């Protein structure tokens, strides 16, 4: 079926059980990005993003196209400094940390202040507006 619609409340596997489709709808990421936070900031790939803002060393704003229904969604962050070090990525820091369309991201490696990370990942889960 091309470009059709299947309305179903349950998906069932032949052996692994069944799943209410509400879990699929509510459990999927509504926006995500993998970006390079060093040099000239740029998204490697993304979905439902309109822009990144470079706010300073290790500090970025992620802005999405289809707004979330409010600012109470769950945002997940990971980062990597190098192939041997992990980075720390925190979100929603400071005034205006979370809105329905933006999240402020702060990254650091180790115990120092904010630091640029070559790989930063952000994903939002929650309800769309």
């Amino acid at each position: 079926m091309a470009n059709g619609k299947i309305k179903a409340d349950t998906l069932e596997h032949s052996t692994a059980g069944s799943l209410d489709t509400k879990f699929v709808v509510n459990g999927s990421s509504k926006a995500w990005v993998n970006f390079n936070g060093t040099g000239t900031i740029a998204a490697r790939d993304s979905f439902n993003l309109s822009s990144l803002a470079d706010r300073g060393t290790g500090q970025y704003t992620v802005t999405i196209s289809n707004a979330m229904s409010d600012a109470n969604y769950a945002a997940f962050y990971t980062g990597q400094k190098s192939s041997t070090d992990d980075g720390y990525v925190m979100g929603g820091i400071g005034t205006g940390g979370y809105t329905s369309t933006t999240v402020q991201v702060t990254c650091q490696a180790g115990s120092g202040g904010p630091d640029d990370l070559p790989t930063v990942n952000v994903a939002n889960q929650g309800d769309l507006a």
Partner: protein
Amino acid sequence: MQTPQFQGTHLFDRLCWAKENLDGVQSDYRVVYEDNVDECAKILVPDPNWMACALQGGILPPVQVYWELAKDEAQPDFVKHTRGHLLHNTKPVEAMTEEQAIEYLIMKDCPQSVWREWDSGNKPKMVICRKEQLPATREWRNAWKITDDLATDETVAA
């Protein structure tokens, strides 16, 4: 590639279509802006998949829709968006040039206090430039400010 008739289609579904059918477009434009005199200059970077939607046309809602949602969210009694349907039911904007897309993005993602009065102070609060005009290294990133003397062939932030 012809964009389907998307008015009335959820914006998220439009973005899914775009992700499957359009290639991302990495823009060389950057928007440098200062929204706080006590902070360094900020740099807006267009998302490549968003830029592809803007250039394609028929996908993105008018920028005014975002202003309306921002007004709602700024209300003290805001709980949840009730006018999200504006994103999905308003007629999508037509195909834009890259420059028009950057202007749209400024009005969507930069603070209104910056772009409405970008040139009213002692120096511009905002500059649109090419990424090559930004400093080559981030060593002193937190000290970047828009330069006082702007020329099209020079570095715009230092």
